[in-house]
């Protein structure tokens, strides 16, 4: 992996040049590496989109396993009034000693019913639930084994059959862009010629900007990164949203066995960069930006949720005067606007009455005289 090589090379350089003043904390990256391998990683990926856009196939292609062996698909009749469910599949996979606990959250039924009003509500509720769970665990007394079920990334599948984003796509992304990292994908890209792909990508990018949807942004490279990395990063950014093709089958193409789709007019190779952006997606999601996705979830989305939660709780406390919250929170001394006004009124009244009293006293005084 490129990251390994980079760190190792730095380590070597410093050892060679400065022997006397060498302290040794340049080995920190290695230590981090070792500890993290021991601990193992976890990642939660959510896939969302209408039925039949190739979500399961893509997940299988990404992680080179078959997660959806015994799946039952509903008929059209059954789907007329279907509600959205949330299903979770967890797998443990290992590669070169690095363990990954992968959780895939699926959303069957999204956008399938005839009336799809608020069909994203179960999804937002699920994400909030995970945040709340983590919040409670984090604020508990025993924090040794916190399970992190927060959703780190949401792949949203846009159908390639239309002219751009549809209202249901826009509504879904707007409901979720502040809670989770959204990565929009153009699915089943083998029905689009290269020109059409470009047109659709431009269209989707414009519409995302127009509607103010905050999709996941790749972090800017540091200026001291290698040129190759910077180039890769630039290409990645220009390619969004990725146009992907997935496949469950292996076919023979150009003398090799590759994952692909066999058509009478040719063979589509999933891992061929000129056919689709699958490789770019895989690199981004797994090989370079997985940890960044986790960080953004922890630092931005979760913190927003937490701040919002605490604010609500304290305002409630000030009103109800109850102390049965799970956290030891001090009631903030900020007075209400309402009470301040009342205090002011009462002050004025008192002042007026005092003045009147003085006047009367004076009058009486004069009269006596």
């Amino acid at each position, binding site marked *: 992996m490129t990251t390994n090589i980079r760190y190792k090379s730095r380590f070597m350089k410093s050892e060679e040049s400065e022997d006397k003043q060498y302290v040794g904390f340049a080995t920190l990256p290695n230590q981090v590496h070792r500890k993290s391998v021991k601990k193992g990683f976890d990642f939660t990926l959510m896939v969302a989109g209408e039925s039949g856009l190739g979500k399961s196939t893509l997940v299988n292609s990404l992680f080179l396993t078959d997660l959806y062996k015994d799946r039952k698909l509903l008929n059209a*009749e059954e789907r007329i009034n279907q509600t959205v469910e949330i299903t979770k599949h967890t797998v443990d996979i290992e590669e070169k000693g690095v363990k990954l606990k992968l959780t895939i959250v699926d959303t069957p039924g999204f956008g399938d*019913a*005839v009336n799809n009003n608020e069909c994203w509500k179960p999804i937002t509720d699920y994400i909030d639930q995970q945040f709340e769970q983590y919040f409670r665990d984090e604020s508990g007394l025993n924090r040794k084994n916190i399970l992190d079920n927060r959703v780190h990334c949401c792949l949203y599948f846009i159908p390639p*059959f*239309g*002219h751009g984003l549809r209202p249901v796509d826009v509504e879904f992304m707007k409901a979720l862009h502040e809670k989770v990292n959204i990565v929009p994908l153009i699915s089943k890209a083998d029905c689009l010629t290269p020109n059409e792909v470009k047109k659709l990508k431009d269209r989707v990018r414009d519409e995302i900007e127009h509607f103010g949807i905050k999709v996941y942004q790749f972090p800017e490279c540091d200026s001291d990164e290698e040129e190759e990395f910077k180039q890769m990063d630039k290409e990645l950014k220009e390619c969004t949203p990725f146009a992907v093709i997935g496949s469950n089958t292996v076919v023979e193409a150009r003398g090799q066995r590759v994952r692909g789709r066999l*058509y009478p*007019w040719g063979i589509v190779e999933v891992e061929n960069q000129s056919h689709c952006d699958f490789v770019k997606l895989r690199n981004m999601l797994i090989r370079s930006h997985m940890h960044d996705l986790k960080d953004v979830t922890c630092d931005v989305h979760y913190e927003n949720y937490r701040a919002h939660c605490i604010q609500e709780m304290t305002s409630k406390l000030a009103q109800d005067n109850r102390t049965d919250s799970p956290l030891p929170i001090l009631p903030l001394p900020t007075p209400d606007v309402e009470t301040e006004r009342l205090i002011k009124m009462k002050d004025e009244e008192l002042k007026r009455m005092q003045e009147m009293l003085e006047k009367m006293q004076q009058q009486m005084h004069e009269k006596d005289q």
Partner: protein
Amino acid sequence: MAATDVDIFSNEEKRNLSLGGHVGFDSLPDQLVSKSVTQGFCFNILCVGETGIGKSTLMNTLFNTMFENEEASHYQNGVYLRPRTYDLQESNVHLKLTIVDTVGFGDQINKEESYKPIVDYIDTQFENYLQEELKIKRSLFNYHDTRIHICLYFIAPTGHSLKSLDLVTMKKLDSKVNIIPIIAKADTISKSELHKFKIKIMSELVSNGVQIYQFPTDDGAVTEINSSMNAHLPFAVVGSVEEVKVGNKAVRARQYPWGVVQVENESHCDFVKLREMLIRVNMEDLREQTHARHYELYRRCKLEEMGFKDTDPDSQPFSLQETYEAKRKEFLGDLQRKEEEMRQMFVNKVKETEGELKEKERELHEKFEQLKRMHQEEKRKVEEKRRELEEEMNAFNRRKVAAETLSLSQPLKKDKDKKKSVNTENQSGVSFSNSKVMMAKANMEPLNCQSWWQAIQCCTCLVHSDAWRQGLF
């Protein structure tokens, strides 16, 4: 038309005769054909499918022309239909083609009402034809028939099954129009997946009782081809208007990095089959079916709604005329009743208003009376006061006279008192008091005057001096 003719023939006795020579009525079909060619043909297609699924492109590909079409946006509030009529000509046959597009279908978040505009449009076309048929002076032979002959339903190539919206819409349309389901953008499904997909779709349609159009298999010449085509439904099509060089020909195709999908290659997609079935073989049958089955059904329902029946409760054949007369009488009776009601209402209202007006009049009258009385009261009071005043004046005069007779032998002081009391009386008595004082004065002080003229002058001077007036003496 043809159906009833056959019935008539079967009731009567008929015998088969053989001809002795060539008569020539075998040219009847040709006469019919030449008549229809001069008349021109008319065909109406309705394309139902999501925005961007390829409806316009397929139409362009089918008819090998570029119909003008702008891309529709995904953000329509509802579904609306966009009919466009074109005049096409091939050899000497004129075709008046109307293509109706559904704009905004499948884009809304709540699609429960999506089918309504489509059904309404189809019904409106039927209604227009019915109205024309029922007219007294009608011209059916040059009436522009806008009834939809065929509905092409575009199914999205998900590879799993029909969408719920598709099922609901097709169920609503199957009794009103001939439906041919098509799998659009079929270059995204591989052969094996396509086979499974087609089977799934057909089984879903059958299990939900959706009646799609079956190519007719009772017409000798085309039975074979039609029955084989029926097995290929729904057709998986690819549309394209761009040409790509394959071999040494330029064919309509889509160019991908991994290959070229040729539209007219039967192993790539079912476009050729669709074109055969739709245009080259069964166009006339579609028109007939629309008229004989769907339109008749609509007409029957509509007329039954209006109350017309073929047989009355006694199972005697009714004629349209009698029913019509009965309806007319009913209608007139209704009208009369309504008129009566309205008249009643009007009369009631008038009475009410009259009553109110009377009330108001009475009130006004009362007020008037009241005012008059008040007026009189006032007058009386004023009169009284005047009388009092006059009495006072008289009393005063009498007192004055009495005082004069007394004052001849009274001292000054009494005058002073009198003056004081006089001055406190009302002002009308001021002049009297002055003259009184003057006379009193005249009696007291003898004037030192030589002659009576001088005496008068002195008196006048005295009177005119301010001191007199004020009575300060």
